[in-house]
């Protein structure tokens, strides 16, 4: 047994030099790019005109929806790319806000009866809460988190939810620190309202939402003593960014903070511009913003300065470039090669600017481009936890709780807790910068460590176990509907076809013949061959014993398949 240094080991396993330090991967040309797929980059954002088949369609659906069902696939199957995009880029219809499913004889929400929404309550975190009030707030916070998971599970064939989450990651806030669940809802609602709308409008609404004003302490900022928190993050994270070469100054942070003074809440927790604490002096910005002066205004007119501030920030090219890079990392890959920077990021930024930051034209351009469908970019994402868990749940379908809203929220809440174990629960990003997979150079690999990987595997196991994921107040746990999913495949009775169809549906990565054989044999493991098991079940689906046998076989097979690394990819 010889000792081996870790760097030797790393070289052996990765074929890469473990010499440190390298420069930033975001702007680093990877070995991959240099050796492999250079040519497709030159096509950049030109409209994709190659073959339009199952591989390309599945790629589009994997990146734009949280999982897709076989019915979704059939819906899109015969549509050309531009028609697919028409559907995907149409906003989802209106939705019901979160409702009270937590009241009981011990805990009554004074503002919302059972089944009614609590989001319009006049409940604030000014002053000290009684134990009861704190408990109700906690229930509401659970309610909004569960509800968000419900929105994800129930989304239609639109990018609305995917973009809502994108904006949540871009203009991030944590429900825990916002504290008041009503304010959390008011922070989250504009993310969804403008999901496929205009960036500036979304930004204005979110920045002035009671949730964000609380989260970044702007409700404590006054002319006499401006608080820099929101003024800084507005530039550093929400808009301009800190990509290489970007140069707003500390003085710009202060000037923006002074523009923002006065934006706070009233005693009901609704947004209110308080003219008396607004800084009415002129705000002078650095050369980065062309030495722009925002004229100080008194009275209600002071609130008009914010729109001017956002216009100024959005007029610098770095903002459009930064947003383009964020879209790229969300939809394509986490490394941006110099070629992609020139041929994808730059023209995408031009499109954002030309459309006054309406997001749909930029999305249409990116998702319809040669670059997006380049072979190199297909199946190269490690799914984030929401893509993974919600995607599986939607693709297979879960056992049906739709008749009982209390059970629905309980089930959604249990999935939210699982997502939290995997480090990506809506409303709970690690901090105001959002999830690091989208800004640190290690990218999607940051989703995976011993802890989160185990949480994913354990959740798959639970979803495929007889008891399922147990939820409070329910006798049946959450399970993947393996029978229904399998029945919709082209020929479920033939094990070869079943494996071929289901693997092609669930992962973009092809399997070797050995693995295919292994999986096929799993279906017949335990005596009776699969063909017979399925035929007997199909002939008499109501027979408990026959359905149990088929279910057990399928669970065994899907567990093996879904716990494989290939099924973590999109």
């Amino acid at each position, binding site marked *: 047994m010889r000792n081996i240094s870790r760097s030797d080991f790393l070289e052996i396993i990765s074929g890469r030099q*473990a010499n440190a330090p390298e420069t930033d991967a975001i702007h680093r040309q990877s070995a991959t790019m240099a050796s492999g797929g250079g040519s497709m980059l030159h096509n950049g954002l030109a409209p994709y005109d190659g073959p339009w088949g199952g591989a390309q369609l599945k790629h589009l659906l994997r990146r734009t929806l949280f999982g897709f069902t076989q019915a979704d696939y059939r819906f899109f199957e015969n549509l050309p790319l531009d028609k697919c995009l028409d559907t995907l880029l149409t906003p989802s219809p209106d939705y019901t806000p979160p409702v009270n499913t937590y009241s009981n004889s011990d805990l009554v929400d004074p503002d919302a009866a059972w089944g009614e929404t609590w989001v319009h309550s006049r409940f604030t975190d000014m002053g000290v809460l009684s134990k009861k009030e704190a408990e109700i707030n906690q229930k509401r916070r659970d309610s909004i988190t569960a509800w968000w998971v419900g929105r994800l599970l129930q989304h239609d064939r639109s990018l609305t939810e995917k973009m809502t989450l994108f904006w949540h990651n871009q203009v991030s806030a944590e429900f825990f620190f916002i504290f008041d669940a009503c304010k959390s809802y008011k922070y989250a609602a504009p993310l969804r309202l403008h999901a496929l709308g205009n960036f500036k409008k979304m930004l204005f609404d979110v920045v002035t939402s009671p949730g964000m004003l609380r989260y970044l302490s702007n409700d404590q900022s006054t002319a006499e003593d401006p608080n820099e928190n929101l003024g800084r993050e507005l530039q550093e994270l929400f808009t301009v960014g800190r990509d*290489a070469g970007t140069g707003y100054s500390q003085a710009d942070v202060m000037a923006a903070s002074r523009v923002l003074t006065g934006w706070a809440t009233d005693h009901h927790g609704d947004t209110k511009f308080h003219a008396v604490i607004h800084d009415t002096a002129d705000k002078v910005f650095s050369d980065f913003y062309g030495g722009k002066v925002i004229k100080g205004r008194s009275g209600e007119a002071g609130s008009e300065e914010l729109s001017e501030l956002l216009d100024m920030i959005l007029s610098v090219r770095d903002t459009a470039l930064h947003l383009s890079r964020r879209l790229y990392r969300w939809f394509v890959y986490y490394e941006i090669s110099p070629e992609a920077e020139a041929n994808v990021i730059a023209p995408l930024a031009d499109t954002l600017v030309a459309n006054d930051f309406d997001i749909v034209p930029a999305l249409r351009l990116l998702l319809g481009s040669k670059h997006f469908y380049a072979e190199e*970019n297909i199946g190269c994402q490690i799914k984030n936890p929401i893509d993974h868990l919600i995607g599986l749940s939607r693709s297979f379908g879960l056992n049906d709780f739709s008749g009982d809203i209390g059970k629905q929220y309980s089930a959604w809440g249990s999935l939210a807790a699982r997502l*939290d174990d995997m480090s990506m629960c809506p409303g709970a990003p690690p901090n105001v910068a959002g999830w690091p997979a989208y800004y640190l*150079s290690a990218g999607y690999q940051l989703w995976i460590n011993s*802890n989160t990987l*185990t949480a994913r*595997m354990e959740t798959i196991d639970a979803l495929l176990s007889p008891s399922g994921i*147990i939820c409070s107040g329910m006798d049946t746990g959450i399970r993947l509907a393996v029978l229904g999913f399998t029945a919709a495949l082209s020929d479920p009775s033939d094990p070869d076809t079943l494996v071929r169809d289901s693997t092609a549906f669930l992962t973009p990565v092809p399997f070797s013949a050995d693995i295919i054989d292994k999986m096929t044999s799993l279906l017949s493991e335990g005596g009776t061959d699969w063909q017979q098991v399925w035929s007997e079940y199909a002939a008499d689906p109501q027979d408990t014993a026959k359905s149990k046998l088929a279910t057990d076989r399928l669970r065994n097979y899907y567990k093996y398949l879904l716990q494989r690394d290939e099924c973590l990819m999109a």
Partner: protein
Amino acid sequence: MPDGIRRMNRRFFLSNALPVSVVSSLMLSGMIGRSLHTRRQSAKGKQKVLVLIQLDGGNDGLNTVIPLDQYKNLLSARKNILIPEAKVARLSDSALTGLHPSLRPLTALYDNKQMTIIQGVGYDRADLSHFRSIDIWHSGSSADTIPTGWVGRWVDKGEYVNDDPPAIQIGSSLPKMLQGAGMHAGMALSDIDHFYDYVPGMYDAAGRSRQQRELSFLHHTGRQSRRYIESVKIAARAGHNSSGLYPSQNENPLADQLKVVARLIAGGLSTQVYSVRLKGFDTHSAQVDHSDPSRGIHATLLSQLAVAITAFQDDLALLGLQDRVLTMTYSEFGRRIKSNISFGSDHGTAAPVMIFGTGMKGGLVGHNPEIPSKVSAMDNLDFQIDFRSVYTSILKDWFHTPQERISAAIPDTFPFLSLF
């Protein structure tokens, strides 16, 4: 970052019943790496250990280690948050420097030379962004971001002959500090009493496409996790805590984490670096109570720190481990000299680093910062000691790391501090 409120347990839902873990009968073959690792060997249980405590959000250094000789000027700069002079915890060897009253329990360690305070730690051209600044501290470089961490690079150059993780983060995600080249240099660990068993796939993508690169990462991380989990399980079972000073579970998040660290070290794990985190130091508002600046969010956090350190050091002593473990605090930056009207403080620059353990010279390193008589809202402290001086001094004199390996962790040279 939001104001500091003590982070509560984020498992807000009723915990789910766990399915019975079933280890699949499908066994592995051809496991790369297995031959490189033998289990249990003689060096185990002798390694020196470094525990890094991140005070997350930017700790107010001026209210942590208080320069009493600057008190008059501090009073004009930050009257609403300044600790009343009479309440400052005094150090036996210095009339000019004191501690926040919440840190009073630590003065006994200080007086016994089991605590070193390094003043004014930072770096040139301080960055006031949380995310850039912690990136600089974690990567060990001010250059535009670097994908690996200083501990990760140190680990990459190490010799590892068993399956114990070289570094552990207590919590659910790994910081950049523990990122090695191409692979994680450690494991993230959130619960040492429950582990799920599964068998990672046997496929190893050999190619160089983006897809194969990510698959290869997944493959190796899965294998790595299995090995680490087996080691940690054994250590968690073998180890225990001896101190009765730990608060009860969920009362003090830092104490909970350090308790796990002590148990794993006691259990014989040969991990050399543990990373833990106390969140909530971004005190833009309500850093102190309006009526009493010695109370409030910051006081609570520092009290958690003091209680946790006291219990941890006591535990290590009772377990006979006190000479093997060095513990260090750090934060992405200190806070502004001038306070704000919200009884808080905005982002600042240099701040003290605290080190705990035996065998040190102890005392104060560096001098008190100088506070001007007139302080503007933008004024910040100059740094005295580069944070990389602290890192490299610990690598050199605590771990006895050869210079070549130190240079791999921190490529540039910084003056060594004589801490031991």
